[in-house]
């Protein structure tokens, strides 16, 4: 169970290995890694080229919210372990932004918890992206699809 908010890159392979090392009670690990795309919006052909993005965050509140999201996941599913790593600062296309992972005795719990962590993080963790594009800088708008994804987990 860990939350890390950091400027520097992380080694996703090493994190995955660490997650499984010496574990004999877990049936599976589900892991998600989010990367910076090189185009704006949904259509690579239509969107302006993204040369880089800068992720701003609210130090203190970010960690607090991520820890709350992690605790919520652990209250909902029987998890062996969870991990959230989120970067801030300037990132170029192809760079890693975020890693979330959940392990459990049963794969459904691992899959669902991992997706839940991403969905809630997307709508609750105080990060904001500004894209540096061929047409200038632009703050990324929140997406309704992300609100809908988070709402799936309401209860």
């Amino acid at each position, binding site marked *: 169970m860990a939350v890390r908010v950091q400027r520097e890159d992380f080694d996703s392979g090493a994190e995955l290995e660490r997650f499984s090392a010496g574990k004999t009670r877990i049936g599976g690990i589900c892991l998600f890694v*989010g990367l910076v795309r090189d185009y704006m919006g949904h259509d690579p052909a239509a969107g302006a080229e993204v040369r880089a993005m800068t*992720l*701003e*965050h*609210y130090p*203190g*509140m970010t960690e*607090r*919210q991520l820890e709350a999201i992690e605790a919520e996941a652990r209250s909902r599913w029987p998890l062996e372990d969870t991990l959230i790593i*989120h970067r801030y600062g300037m990132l170029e296309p192809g760079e890693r*932004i*975020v890693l979330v992972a959940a392990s459990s005795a049963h794969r459904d719990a691992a899959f669902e918890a991992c997706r839940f962590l*991403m969905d809630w*993080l*997307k*709508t*609750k*963790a*105080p*990060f*904001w*992206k*500004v894209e540096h594009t061929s047409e200038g800088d632009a*703050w*990324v*708008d*929140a*997406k309704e699809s992300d609100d809908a994804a988070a709402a799936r987990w309401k209860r």
Partner: protein
Amino acid sequence: MKVLYFAWLRAKTGIGEEEIALPSEVVTIAQLVELLKGRSPGHAAAFAEMAVVRVAVNQDYVGLDSPVTTGDEVAFFPPVTGG
């Protein structure tokens, strides 16, 4: 009271953080927003459309009718876009 601005609210107000002397009649977030709007045209622009402004008091999300007191840390920011 410490007031923080993030993302385009920071860009519009031109500041990331300011200290506010809270008048005794200001007891809710909505009243605080009205007070802040008067500080500059940039502030007025930042708070022009409250539907796209989120608020946290002491790092927890709150609504506009939430109470504020002088020792609070209040943050204003757009809907989040991390991940």
